[in-house]
């Protein structure tokens, strides 16, 4: 072989080796970034599910309190009310005329793109008309691809208007030729939940046979209390918010629960369980299940024969003796008929609170009343698929089940179905295929946890029923960011949430750490630290890997457990509150806010001192926090009361937040520099997202 060939081969050999080396190195670097992104998302997800669990517990706690929400009044009353609302000339937003046409949907889209707001009168009229249309639909709607060839299915939107607009931009507006199905969770968390509902309902009215909606677990007013939708409505619609919220509850209860396409593809928001019975599901009156979250299957699974629809079924936890009084109260409160329970006087209200508090204090476990069909609905709205066989209670969320491939296979076989499409879980790529291709998760809210946390996606189904996925990501940055930058932002945000979570349980954590540190050295081993944190926070996270980001290490590798707390503190602004209460108020502020909002019947934002005390008592009995009456009284008096003795409780609670004592300006600058502020869409194809 001549020298030239030899040199050439020599060169090629080393080029290939060099290339492989670089590729190896690069893939290793990417894998480490991927690991950081994974645990950042795990952190967000664990915290989210733990909050959902707390919410379900709170909701079931409140089944015995008669809700005032059933004061929507008759339809006639409401119509009159709507007609009396005047739309001033100064209002430049869309003016809807019913029956709606494409002109109306266009004007709504146009208005919302410019951040305008629809006037309350039109909102109420729209909800009214929507309810009429939804009422005529069965619990499970049957669709066919034979007419329009392709149907587009979208997952959770969670109030993110940019994502909905991006979907319409990429995929076209809904029409007879372009049918859509939105699989629940339209509201909460994002800041445009009402706009999304308005758009979806408007299209529903214009194309009732081509725009389909499934109910999600967030189409539930008790979830809305915690996750932001109620607040959004109250802020945007002020004096009209109560009527809107009431009517919304009605509308929620009439949303269909499932859809079946071509008798082959089942679509529900959450998932299924081993008890899911589609025939039964189709029979009962779905509007009776107003708050699925308030009757979660937490703690008890029921298996049995079908009951006649309309017959309540009582199930109490083992070991709890039922008293006639208790049962009577459950009977009263759980049967939510359209006729309105009488408004309670202040005295009666007080009595109810006291009686229930007593009852709760006397019981070792919370009794739960579960309608069989509530259970079915909860499973449909809350369940998640898992990789291993079997059907277990969903302990991450506290409601519904985790269903394995065998459960899926059995259900699909029983009803001669090919596939299950569901949403409910945020997925990095916007979608995920599991159970051997039989279960598809579709999630349409990109950047759900944080900018850059995940893509959104929708799927298109044509008559061959093979799904085609389209991914996207709304981006607020003008220039393409590197993966490292994107991951850093998400990671930073996740760790910040986690640090605040640690801080909110500071006292308990320190007590747990001290168990391992009898000599008070301030140090414990990594394993001990991880065990203690896991046992207090109850979040299934890779604590050992996260350790270096949460706490300082000593030279010998041991953990200096107090270092997590040294740079944070709870700021309560100007409110003078005893130190002992500060941590409790911070930790439970969301729960307290919700309890308060339930008590604040007229949505005024104010409660009296007496109601404040009652709130606290309920809170105590629910969460078993021991705070004596004197402390409560002191707290009540230390808050600024205006002349008529009422306080703005929301404002009071909002004041409690964690701040960084040594405001790390450098860190803030570094992160801010990663965030260019010009908002725009990431047009697909141009930047590769």
């Amino acid at each position, binding site marked *: 072989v001549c020298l030239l060939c030899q040199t050439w081969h020599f060169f090629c050999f*080393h*080029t*290939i*080796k*060099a*290339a*492989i*080396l*670089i*590729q*190896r*190195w*690069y*893939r*290793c*670097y*990417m*894998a*480490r970034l*991927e*690991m950081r992104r*994974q*645990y950042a998302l*795990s952190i967000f997800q664990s915290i989210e599910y733990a909050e959902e669990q707390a919410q379900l517990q709170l909701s079931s706690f409140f089944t015995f309190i008669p809700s005032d929400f059933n004061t929507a009044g008759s339809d006639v009353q409401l119509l009159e009310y709507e007609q009396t609302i005047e739309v001033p000339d100064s209002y430049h937003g869309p003016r809807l005329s019913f029956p709606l046409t494409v002109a109306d949907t266009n004007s709504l889209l146009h208005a919302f793109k410019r951040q305008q707001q629809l006037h309350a009168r039109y909102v109420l009229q729209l909800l009214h008309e929507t309810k009429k249309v939804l009422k005529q639909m069965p619990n499970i709607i049957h669709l066919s691809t034979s007419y329009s060839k392709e149907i587009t299915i979208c997952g959770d939107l969670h109030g993110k208007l940019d994502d909905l607009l991006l979907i319409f931009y990429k995929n076209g507006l809904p029409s007879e030729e372009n049918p859509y199905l939105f699989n629940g969770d339209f509201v909460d968390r994002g800041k445009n939940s009402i706009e999304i509902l308005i758009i979806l309902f408007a299209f529903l009215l214009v194309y009732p046979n081509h725009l389909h909606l499934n109910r999600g677990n967030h189409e539930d007013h008790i979830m809305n209390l915690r996750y932001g939708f109620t607040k959004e409505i109250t802020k945007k619609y002020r004096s009209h918010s109560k009527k809107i919220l009431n009517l919304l509850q009605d509308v929620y209860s009439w949303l269909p629960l499932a859809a079946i396409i071509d008798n082959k593809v089942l679509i529900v928001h959450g998932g299924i369980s081993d008890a899911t019975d589609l025939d039964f599901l189709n029979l009962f009156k779905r509007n009776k299940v107003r708050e699925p979250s308030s009757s979660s299957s937490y703690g008890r699974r029921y298996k049995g024969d079908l009951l006649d629809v309309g017959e309540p079924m009582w199930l109490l936890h083992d070991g709890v003796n039922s008293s006639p009084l208790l049962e009577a109260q459950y009977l009263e409160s759980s049967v939510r008929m359209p006729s309105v329970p009488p408004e309670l006087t202040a005295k009666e209200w007080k009595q109810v609170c006291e009686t229930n508090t007593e009852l709760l204090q006397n019981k070792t476990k919370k009794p739960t009343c579960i309608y069989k069909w509530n259970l079915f609905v909860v499973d449909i709205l809350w369940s998640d698929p*898992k*990789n*291993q066989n079997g059907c277990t209670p969903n302990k991450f969320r506290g409601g519904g089940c985790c269903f394995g491939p065998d459960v899926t296979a059995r259900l699909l076989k029983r009803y001669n179905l090919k596939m299950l499409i569901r949403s409910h879980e945020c997925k990095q790529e916007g979608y995920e295929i599991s159970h*051997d291709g039989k279960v598809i998760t579709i999630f349409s809210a990109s950047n759900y946890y944080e900018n850059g946390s995940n893509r959104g996606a929708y799927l298109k189904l044509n008559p061959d029923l093979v799904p085609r996925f389209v991914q996207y990501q709304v981006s607020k940055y003008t220039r*393409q*960011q*590197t*993966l*490292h930058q994107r991951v850093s932002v998400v990671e930073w945000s996740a760790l910040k949430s986690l640090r605040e979570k640690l801080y909110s349980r500071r006292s308990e954590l320190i007590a747990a750490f001290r168990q391992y540190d009898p000599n008070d050295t301030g140090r414990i081993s990594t394993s001990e630290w991880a065990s203690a944190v896991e046992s207090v926070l109850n979040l*299934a996270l*890779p604590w*050992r*890997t996260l350790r270096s980001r949460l706490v300082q290490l000593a030279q010998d590798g041991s953990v200096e457990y107090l270092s997590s707390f040294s740079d944070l503190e709870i700021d309560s602004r100007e409110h003078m509150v005893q130190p002992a209460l500060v941590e409790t108020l911070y930790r439970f502020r969301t729960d307290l806010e919700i309890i308060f909002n339930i008590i604040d019947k007229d949505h005024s934002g104010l409660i009296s001192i007496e109601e404040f005390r009652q709130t606290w008592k309920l809170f105590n009995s629910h969460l078993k926090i021991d705070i004596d009456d004197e402390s409560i009284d002191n707290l009540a008096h230390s808050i600024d009361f205006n002349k008529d003795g009422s306080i703005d409780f929301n404002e009071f609670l909002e004041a409690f937040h964690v701040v960084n004592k040594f405001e790390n300006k450098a860190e803030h600058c570094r992160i801010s520099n990663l965030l260019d502020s010009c908002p725009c869409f990431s047009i697909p194809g141009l930047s*590769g997202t």
Partner: protein
Amino acid sequence: MALAAAYVIQQEWALEGSREQRVAGKKITDAFEVFDHECNKTVDVREIGTIIRSLGCCPSEGELHDMLAEVSSLPFVIFSSILKFTKALIFSLLCRRPEYRPIPEDVLLRAFEVLDVNKCGHLTKEELVKYMTEEGEPFTQEEMEEMLSAAVDPETNTVRYKDYITMMVVDEN
């Protein structure tokens, strides 16, 4: 050749002694934990490559393929189910392949220099794309775009590889 010498150094790496084994074992478990989404000591087999790499090992795609094929009896490409990977199993793999240790900066630099035929201190964007997508174990389009987004100097449209390497190393720490 410089690259051959680097290979020799890597072979000196070994995990002897029970303390090192324990520490390494914990590290491996921790890495798996991050990907154990259902908290039941299982991970998706398709993520094994990422897990091994996140530990600082730099196997090539081919080496990874062989490793996984050894661990299960099925060819890598038809994996669709979950396999249980015990700590001991992966650990033994790592022990047997000491050449998977992280790639030092200077070795990386020399690799770029090999590709820099004209010895001008930078590669053009086109050159880098050609090498990465046509030679060795080619990048996917996504991988290539990702590398370019960080490596290409927007003003000159070239890859100043020395600066790039320095930046990536700083990012890591």
